[in-house]
């Protein structure tokens, strides 16, 4: 299976430094190396201004360590090595998140991130222990020849994998750390984290699934359910965010949801034996993983450039950046179109596969599955619609119109070193969108591993899929040609027409000001009001003066409903810890009493009862 393996004996008990490369690992390594190298250029320029008291060498050390550990995660072929790389990744990304550690919310975010990843790793530990003693050794290839599982154990392993890897990927109930950690990190780091690091979770899930053999029905159902919930909740929360990087973090949760839906459909196909369903589901998920890493890192880099230039991440203080930062705006626009899944770009390709998969599933006419697929299509379309709304808001509020806070420092376009990676990523998005049929051919070996099936009987599926993709490419070309046609027609028609400049029509209002423009929360207020019982929507209205109204203020914010799940256990632990402090009260007598009690208890228990 691996076309390259390296095993070095290693004194660690049970572990061995065995790494290997197979199609699945390579598929994840490619975006890792593309994005991490581009982010280095960006980061170099981005951090140059912040060197007032921070030594950059430390951050670049941890950056290299993060990339190394992620590569190791993708290549590890031994459970112990995998966990070590996993831990290394968590720790190095923690230090990167803490780069701007002096700010209170960064330390808070870093703290939550550290606790969340380690809770996730705990589940992984249990899973690998179970797998280990089932397979006899902790080697991954030993896992693969576990012939038959008793269903309940396989189910347990699957649940642990979903929780453990889900915590890293950001599936809904475990996503709480993602919107905290990503905005706090410097942009090139959050681009890398959002682009690649959350994919290590999906990679782990895929890797374990290849060992678990034929998935029962409820596995697919669980993944689809959690995927849809992550999608809808993620995009709704993204919709109601004011901070641009938090918005992008929540949209990562949504995209991870879509990937899980793809995986779920693939597993349903595997279970019911429907080849097309399995192929489309897995192909859709894998394509979306690749596409998402491209356009999400592009968006984060764009957001970073804006935040860096403007000095603030709050969208309500920005505006009119297209005129001052044309390149950033252009690339951000391409990223936004891609993430909304609109045709000419790569986002559409993966969503097309997922929809096509669910439509095929619908055709299969097994009664109880029809309901599931209808929900997928309905929710998927809703997620698509909301994504369009969310990214129209982001691009519109930040880049279009007038700048809402003129007092901000003078905004200049970012230097070439930061622009280059963004342009490259934008071109990549366009390229993947246009030549997706050839990309699908490259995907064939990966699909073989994931679908655990020989490639030959997939050739029929492959031909149909490539035929559809080539049609999409033709249509993309038709669209671009039509646009060029209209563009030149218009130029010809407007050639000798008088062009005048004037003030935006504000229906007669004499002196409109930039502050009158729509703000971010107002733009999505109709939608968030529609879903207000899902989101914890808070409004703070301050209106002074009964008859002669003085100045008032209005503030609205939406809290993450999942945040409230984690509050009680942590408060409980804090109370217990505080109460237990009283043991150490410094009174000698009681110290000795503890010893005496232990002694007597042991004596009675062990010797008395002779246990």
């Amino acid at each position, binding site marked *: 299976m691996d076309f390259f393996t390296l095993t070095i004996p290693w004194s660690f008990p049970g572990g061995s430094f065995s790494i290997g490369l197979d199609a699945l690992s390579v598929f994840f390594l490619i975006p890792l190396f593309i994005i991490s190298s581009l982010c280095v250029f960006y980061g170099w320029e981005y951090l140059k201004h912040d060197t007032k008291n921070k030594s950059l060498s430390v951050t670049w050390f941890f950056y290299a360590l993060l990339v190394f550990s992620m590569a190791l995660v993708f290549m590890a072929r031994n459970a112990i090595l995998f966990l070590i790389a996993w831990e290394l990744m968590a720790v190095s990304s923690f230090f990167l998140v803490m780069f701007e550690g002096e700010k209170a919310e960064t330390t808070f975010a870093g703290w939550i991130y550290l606790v969340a990843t380690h809770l996730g790793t705990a589940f992984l530990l249990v899973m690998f222990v179970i797998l280990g003693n089932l397979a006899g050794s902790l080697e991954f290839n030993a896992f693969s020849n576990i012939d038959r599982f008793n269903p309940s154990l396989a189910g347990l392993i699957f649940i642990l994998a979903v929780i453990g890897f889900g915590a890293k990927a950001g599936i809904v109930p475990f996503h709480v750390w993602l919107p905290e950690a990503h905005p706090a990190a410097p942009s090139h780091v959050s681009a890398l984290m959002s682009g690649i690091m959350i994919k290590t979770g999906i990679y782990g899930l895929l890797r374990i699934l290849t060992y678990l053999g034929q998935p029962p029905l409820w596995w697919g159902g669980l993944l689809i359910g959690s995927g849809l919930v992550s999608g809808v909740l993620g995009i709704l929360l993204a919709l109601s965010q004011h901070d641009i990087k938090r918005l992008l973090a929540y949209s990562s949760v949504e995209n991870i949801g879509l990937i899980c839906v793809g995986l779920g459909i693939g597993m349903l196909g595997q279970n019911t034996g429907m080849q097309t369903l399995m192929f489309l589901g897995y192909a859709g998920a894998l394509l979306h993983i690749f596409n998402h890493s491209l356009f999400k890192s592009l968006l984060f880099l764009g957001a970073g450039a804006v935040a860096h230039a403007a000095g603030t991440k709050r969208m309500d203080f920005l505006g009119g950046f297209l005129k001052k930062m044309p390149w950033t705006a252009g690339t951000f626009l391409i990223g936004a179109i891609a993430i909304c899944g609109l045709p000419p770009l790569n986002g559409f390709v993966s969503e097309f596969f997922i929809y096509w998969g669910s439509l095929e599933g619908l055709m299969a006419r097994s009664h109880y599955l029809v309901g599931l697929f209808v929900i997928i299509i309905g929710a998927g379309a809703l997620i698509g619609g909301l994504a369009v709304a969310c990214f129209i808001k982001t691009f519109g509020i930040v880049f279009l119109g007038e700048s809402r806070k003129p007092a901000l420092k003078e905004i200049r376009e970012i230097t070439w070193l930061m622009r280059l990676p963004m342009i490259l990523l934008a071109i990549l998005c366009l390229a993947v969108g246009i030549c997706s049929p050839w990309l699908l051919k490259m995907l064939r070996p990966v699909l073989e591993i994931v679908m655990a099936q020989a490639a030959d009987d997939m050739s029929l599926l492959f031909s149909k899929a490539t035929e559809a993709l080539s049609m999409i490419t033709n249509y993309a070309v038709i669209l671009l040609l039509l646009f060029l046609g209209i563009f030149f027609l218009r130029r010809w028609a407007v050639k000798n027409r008088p062009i005048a400049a004037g003030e935006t029509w504000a229906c007669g209002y004499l002196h409109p000001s930039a502050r009158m423009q729509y703000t971010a929360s107002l733009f999505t207020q109709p939608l968030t009001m529609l879903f207000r019982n899902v989101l914890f929507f808070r409004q703070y209205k301050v209106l002074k003066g009964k008859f002669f109204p003085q100045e008032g203020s209005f503030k609205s914010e939406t809290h993450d409903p999942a945040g409230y799940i984690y509050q009680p256990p942590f408060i409980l*632990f*804090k109370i*217990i*810890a*505080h109460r*237990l*402090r009283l*043991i*150490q009260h*410094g009174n*000698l007598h*009681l*110290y*000795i009493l*503890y*010893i005496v*009690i*232990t*002694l007597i208890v*042991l*004596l009675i228990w*062990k*010797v008395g009862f*002779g246990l």
Partner: protein
Amino acid sequence: MILQAIVVIPFLSGLVTLVVHQRNLRKIILIFTAIVHLGLTFFFWFTRPPASFHGWLAVDALGFIFLSITSLLFFAAAFYTLDYLARSEQQGKDIHSLSAKEMLQPEAIFLGCLQLLLATMTLTILSQHVGLLWVAIEATTLVSAPLIYFHKNERSLEATWKYLIICSVGIALGLLGTIFLDIATFNTAGQRVPLFMRELVNGAFFLQKDWLKGAFIFILVGYGTKMGLAPMHTWLPDAHSEAPSVISMLLSATLLNCAFLGILRIHQICVAAGIAVFSQQLFIGFGILSIFVAAVFIFNQ
């Protein structure tokens, strides 16, 4: 013969330091002892020395690990102490901020006890006789008491007093455990098994199970107090916070190991006697309890 040297040299140098008056002579002796001890241990790495003092002292595999740790750390502590003494001296003189009651333990006693501590710890590690092991551990407690009492103020006195009382209660229980072990060796067949580790382990099967369990419990609780296992750990934070940093380093790094060695010896016997499950359960129980208590208290500091 070399084996005796590694114990006797620190012992003698400790006594000499107690007596000698010149400051830098004391320091030279300290450095000399540290180097000799480390040199001997390094030498032991290559040629395992024969048992000496007709079997009472020997370096077995288990002991060797502890010996290397102890000598390495003492080597580091020795150099650190020189500077530490100089600085605390300086602190005492120029800022006079120390409250009137705050006097320093005379340097001679401090350095002397330090070397005696090394001697007693080496004795604990090397001793093959269970009784001798107990005596050595008792000696380490007595020798380390003045070390904790370096900054003579009211709080460190209280900490030392606590350390002494609790550790002696622990060691008394340890003594009881050793006696239980001794009684356990007397079985119906009449022939006695001397309290040497080798014989005890070989003849373990003939020991009386009940007395051996009793011995294990007493030794576990007794030396556990010295080692700082969970319910008996209460003196540890107070003593270590009051003691100078180099001493708390030595205490926690090497002294606890010696107490742990005592427990490991009795565990060896239990395993040989076939009641390994009994001791393992206790170890796991105490281990988890200690981790939980530590986690709670770290969370609060």
